[in-house]
C-alpha cells in the first residue's frame, strides 16, 4: 500500500445512516479473488436494478468519478468483511466523511489507504445540503486534518496512529517483524507462566 498526504477529487453525498458492510458489498460477491477487482460490487443492490443495470439517479451513478464520499452515521457497521473496503477502494474512493464508523471497518480502511474521516453530525448535515444531488471539488489533506469542499473547510477527527499510517503507507507485518525478539520473549514467558493457555491435545 502506498501512502498519501493530499487528495483532490470529486465529493458526492450519500445521505443515509447505518450503511453496513452487507450493503457495501453483498455476501454473494465475496468469493471473488481480489485481483479481479471489487469496484463493480460497491453498494451493488442499492445502485443497481434486479438485472444489474445502474440506477440513473443513485448519487454514485450520477457522479461516477467521485472519490470522496460524504455519508451518515455508523458507516461500515456490521460484518468485518474487508471486501467492503476493497469495493470502495477499487471503485476509486479515497476518503469517506461521516459522523461515525464501524470500528473494524475503520481499521480495515486504514489498512488499505482509505481515510475514514470523522466530522460532527451537524457539519455533515450542512454538507448534505451543500452537495445536494451534485458533486463538488474537494481537497483532503491528511497533514492538516482538513477537507476543503464547496468553499468551506472542515476539520476531521482521526486517530494519530492512523494518520501516520495513511501518510506512510506502512505495512504492519514489516513493522511487527522488527519486534520479533520481544515477541519470542513474550511467547516463551507466557508458555512458562500460563502453560494452560496452550490448547491441550484432544484425547
Amino acid at each position, binding site marked *: 500500500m502506498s501512502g498519501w498526504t493530499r487528495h483532490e477529487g470529486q465529493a458526492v453525498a450519500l445521505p443515509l445512516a447505518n450503511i453496513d458492510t452487507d*450493503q457495501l458489498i453483498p455476501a454473494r460477491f465475496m468469493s471473488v479473488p481480489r485481483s479481479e477487482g471489487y469496484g463493480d460490487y460497491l453498494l451493488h443492490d442499492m445502485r443497481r436494478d434486479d438485472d444489474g443495470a445502474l440506477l440513473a439517479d443513485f448519487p454514485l451513478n450520477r457522479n461516477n468519478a467521485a472519490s470522496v464520499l460524504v455519508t451518515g452515521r455508523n458507516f461500515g457497521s456490521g460484518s468485518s468483511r474487508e471486501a467492503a473496503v476493497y469495493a470502495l477502494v477499487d471503485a476509486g474512493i479515497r476518503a469517506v466523511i461521516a459522523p461515525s464508523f464501524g*470500528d*473494524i471497518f475503520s481499521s*480495515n480502511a486504514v*489498512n488499505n489507504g482509505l481515510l475514514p474521516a470523522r466530522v460532527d453530525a451537524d457539519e455533515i448535515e450542512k454538507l448534505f445540503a451543500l452537495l445536494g444531488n451534485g458533486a463538488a471539488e474537494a481537497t483532503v489533506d491528511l497533514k492538516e486534518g482538513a477537507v476543503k469542499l464547496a468553499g468551506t473547510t472542515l476539520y476531521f477527527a482521526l*486517530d494519530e496512529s492512523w494518520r501516520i499510517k495513511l501518510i506512510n503507507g506502512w505495512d*504492519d507485518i514489516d513493522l511487527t517483524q522488527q519486534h520479533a525478539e520481544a*515477541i519470542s520473549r513474550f511467547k516463551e514467558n507466557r508458555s512458562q507462566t*500460563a502453560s494452560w493457555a496452550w*490448547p491441550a491435545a484432544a484425547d
Partner: protein
Amino acid sequence: MSVPQTLLDKLWATHEILRREDGVSLLWVDRHLVHEGSHHAFAKLAARGAKVAVPELTFAVVDHYAPTRNRARIEDPQIARMIKTLRTNARSHDVRLFDLNDPGQGIVHVIGPEQGLTLPGLLINCGDSHTSTHGAFGTLAFGIGATEVAHVLATQTVWQKKPPAMRITVDGSLGPGVSAKDIALNWIAQLGTDGARGHALEYAGSAIRDLTMEGRMTLCNLSIEGGARFGMVAPDATTLAYVEGRPHAPKGADWDKAVAAWSEFVSEQGAEFAKDIHFDAADIAPTVTWGTSPEQALPVDASIPDPARLAGGKSDSARAALDYMGLVAGRPLAGTPVDQVFIGSCTNGRIEDLRAAAAVLSGRRAKVPGLVSPGSAQVKAQAEDEGLDKIFTKAGLDWVASGCSMCVGMNGDLVGEGKRCASSTNRNFRGRQGRGARTHLMSPVMVAAAAVNGAIADVRPLLDGRAV
C-alpha cells in the same frame, strides 16, 4: 493504594508485548480461528512467501459456505472452490481443520467454546465480527479484517489501541419467555447501534450471573451490533463447569493452575468505567426488530413506530426501513404475518436454544415453512439424542446440517425477495438473508411462536404448563 482494575485492564496487561509511543499496543494472540472467508488473508501471506507463525494456535473451520444438505456432492462450483481453498491453505500451513464431515464441525463461534479452545483469560481473534461471542468466558475476543488476519497468521500478534471500558449491569430476574437475546436487543434499542461504539463492554449484575454460558455467549455475540469492540462476562463457577473436560481444555495440573489464574479475571470493587449503565431485568419483554438495523427493536406488544414522531436523524432511516420491510406505522407488531422462520446461527444455534424452541413447538404445527440448522455437528448429534429433531420435523420444519446457513446465505440458504422471515440470527440488515429479504430478529422461542402462529406473536401465552 493502587487504582482498582477492570477485567479489561487485567486481560490487556497479560497480553501486551509492547506499547508504541502513539499508544497502540502489540498484543499476543492465544487462539486464531479462520474460515473460508480467510482466503484473502492467506493470499496476502502467499504473496509475501510467509508461513503461519504458530500453527498450533490456529484452527480452521468450514462454516460460512457449509452446505446444510447434500454435503457429499456440492453443486455450486463457487462454494466448492471456497471450501477447497480453505482445505488447501490449512494443509499447506499445517493448521487443524474442522472439515465438513468432522464431528467437531460447526460455526466458528460455537465450536471454539465447545472444543475447549475458548478459555477465560485468553485473547482470541477471528476474521469475523461476532468473535465477541468468546468474551462470554472472560476473554479478550474481537473480530478483525483480512489485513489483520494476515498479520496474525504471520506474527501471532495484533496491534490494537486499548479501548475505554464500559459496563452494562442487569439486575433482577428475567420473566418467562425472556432470554439473553432480549437483554441484548433491548439495550441496543435503547442505546443505539453506536451506543457502545469503541468500548470494551463488560456485562455484570445478577441477571447476567444467572445466565448459562449459552445465554452469555448470545449476549456477548450481539455486543458488536451495539458497536462494542468486545463483550465480556467475568468467569465464575458457571464458566468453569462449562469448560472442564472439553477436548482442548487444560487438564491435570494445568487445570488447577488455570483455575487459580482465572479467579483473578474480575473487575475490582471501585474500578472506573467510562460508561456505566443499569437495566432492570423485570422491565425486559420478548423483543422483536421491526426495521433494518438491530436498534430498530421493540417489545412484541408494541406498535410499529411512526417515523414522524422519532427524534432527529432517526425518522428518515425509520421511514426507509418501514418501506423496505413493507410495514405500516401504528399497526401492532404482533400479528404481522411471516412467510418463513429460521432457527440457527452463532447467536442462537446452541443446544439450549434448540431445546427452548422445541419446548414451544412440541405437539404443535408450524403454519409456515422453516429451517432449523444447529450451530455445530455436536449440537446436532445432541439434539437428535434428545429427540428435538423429531419435534421440529413433526412441526413441519426442516432439520438440516450445521453452518452459518440462512444467517448470511452464503451457502445458498436464502430468504426470497420480499419474503418475511422470523429469525434467531443477529442482523436484520437489508439483503442480509438474501436480496430484498425482510428479517425480524427475535429469540428462538419467539421464532417458534411465529412459526406456530404464522405471524409475529408473543410467546408467553404458548408457555403455559411447559418448561422452557
